[in-house]
């Protein structure tokens, strides 16, 4: 808790000293403003207008800021900063959990890792920005932490949590879908060598991971964009891959 609070403090300090808005952030402010002004239809139209090939790359961060602004009552820019400040500060928690698991019996390495991700200047810098990375990194780290827990505890519940956090990371930043690769390989290592008697537990873990990932993804997209959003987002990802395969940037 002290590390997290210290991290928040140093981010506030940086914000006071360097309050220049991020250049990339101006785009997200613009999107959230549109969302506040015109609702879901407007953000969907705007997203398709701005990025026709893959409009829904990072809706979760925008959605969180949209919620925090209370429909445009509060200033968008500062709400985004607050969201990032919180998420970049608490990312030390899953990192602490991961290292604690990897080095059982000694808490010192976990503290080192947590302090590094909390106070490193890069972390502080993006923690005071209007970018989607802090949210994505937090959920990604949480997903990895749950996968490691799954590896050590052999608990399907941890696998399910890894899937949920992975889906949230994916919604915060599309590239974070690769956290599934991490989770899958961690799970694979947990049961290496695979034996027949462990197969049911492996299937249970994989099913809980994948099922929770898909379910969370659908629920969140439905929450943000409604029923039409799911097909739109699915189409967006499909287009993303087709464009990607076609070589377009």
């Amino acid at each position, binding site marked *: 808790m002290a590390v997290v609070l210290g991290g928040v403090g140093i981010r506030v300090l940086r914000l006071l000293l360097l309050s220049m*808005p991020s*250049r990339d952030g*101006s*785009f997200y*402010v*613009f999107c959230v*403003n549109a969302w506040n*002004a015109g609702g879901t239809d407007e953000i969907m139209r*705007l997203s*398709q*207008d701005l990025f*026709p*090939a893959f409009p829904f790359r990072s809706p979760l961060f925008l959605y969180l800021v949209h919620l925090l602004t209370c429909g445009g009552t509060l200033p968008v820019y500062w709400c985004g900063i607050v969201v990032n400040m919180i998420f970049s500060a608490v*990312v030390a928690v899953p*990192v602490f959990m*991961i*290292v604690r698991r*990897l*080095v059982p019996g000694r808490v*010192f*390495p976990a503290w*080192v*890792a*947590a*302090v*590094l*991700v909390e*106070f*490193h*200047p*890069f*972390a502080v*810098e*993006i923690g005071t*920005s209007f970018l989607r*990375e802090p949210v994505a*990194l937090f959920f*990604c780290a949480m997903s*990895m932490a749950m*996968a*490691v827990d799954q*590896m050590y505890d052999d608990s399907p519940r941890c696998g399910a949590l890894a899937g949920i956090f992975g889906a949230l990371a994916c919604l915060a*930043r599309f*590239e*974070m879908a*690769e*956290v599934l*690769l*991490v989770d899958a*390989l*961690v799970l*694979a*290592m*947990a049961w*290496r060598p695979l034996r027949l008697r462990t197969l049911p537990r492996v299937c249970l873990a994989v099913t809980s991971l994948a099922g929770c990932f898909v379910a969370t993804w659908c629920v969140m997209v439905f929450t943000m964009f409604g029923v039409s959003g799911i097909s739109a987002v699915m189409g967006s990802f499909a*287009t993303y891959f087709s464009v990607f*395969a076609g*070589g*377009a*940037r």
Partner: protein
Amino acid sequence: MSLFVRKLLSFLFEPFACAVVVSCVILALAGARRLGRWMVFALTVFAVMVGWRAMVGVVTTRYWASVLIPCAIVVALCADWAVRRLGHRKLVCAIVGIIVALNMAESLHVNRRSANFVDCIGMLPAASDGRVPVVPASEFYRIGFLRPDIAMSGVVRYDGNIIRDFSVRDSLLYFSGLLQGTSGVKYLLFQSRDGIGRCPADLPASLRDRLSLLYCGKIANSSRRSLYLFRMEEAGNAGRGEGGKALVSWDFESDAASGWLPEYAEKFARRGYGFYLKPHVYPRGVYCYYPDVMGESSSFNIEVVSGSGSVLAGAGSLVVEAFSRMYLMSPLLANGNMTLSFDAVSMDGRAGMDVMLFGYYDDRGGFRYMHLGRWNRVPGKPFHCVYRVAPEWLRGCDKVRVAIIPEHGKIMLDNVKICAGWL
């Protein structure tokens, strides 16, 4: 190597993917209880992947932040190993603290540099047939993100009036200034710090007096004075509507063997590319120029699209405020080139802006894009800016969209024109 494979590799080497893959290796192998051996492997993979991205210059602060998690895990495990082996926890903590402090110093240093960058995109056609060569986006960025460590200072003059002065020390920037004379000769200048205010000896007096953009730069690693003069000659009376051709010659007037510029300029010139100068660093009101040969304008059509009503159309001018963006839509003729020009002025003296170009080439919304310019500070008096885009870049596109994105402050654009035509 097919385009798909290259794209796939590029995607895998994307720093976020890199971070995830490294995390994967670390976690999975740590779970296998073979930390010592595999940690070296993971670190090697990490170094190669991030190093590769850093080499091509796409690793920015937020990418570094993304790889921070695996970094922290690795450092923590190494610290644990060191404590067990050395038995000095305080010593290990001190080492980690020093690492953080060094990173912080570097971060502050980069921030300070970023705030002072001068932006300039220049392209000199290397082809002798007047066609502006295409520089693929990857090359564009590869050039742009080099860090030559040039220090520079000087003034920008236009018709004898100083329109901008700047002084940048220890910047990352490489620089292009453009001289254009009435004789149709254009010069692209790089000049050392001790040459401030002095024109190259062979510069015609008519050029010195009339139109000059003098930039002074020095290669930090070189003890010798370095002066680079790129000369572009236009054959015939090149200009709008007259179909002239451009010839380019590169003159490096100093050996500057330690400098990056001749090496890369020659390298890319040999490969038939033009010379893009695309800094990821940021401007203080500078010229952006695509000196290809402009053909006759056949049509242009500007549609101002506003997402939130924040773009205001005034009497012959457009005001774009921060946190909004303006789009200029224009149809394109097949194989046509495109020129965007406008006069920009900062209404409050603190505006910055980006100019992006999107080219749409199919009905599914496929597009390519290019960062035309980025200014940290738009001048307080009208500043004419011209971007010319080669037909090769626009090939297959049926329309383009120009996005003008203010960063902060308020910008007024005047005489906005998109000319889409034929060479």
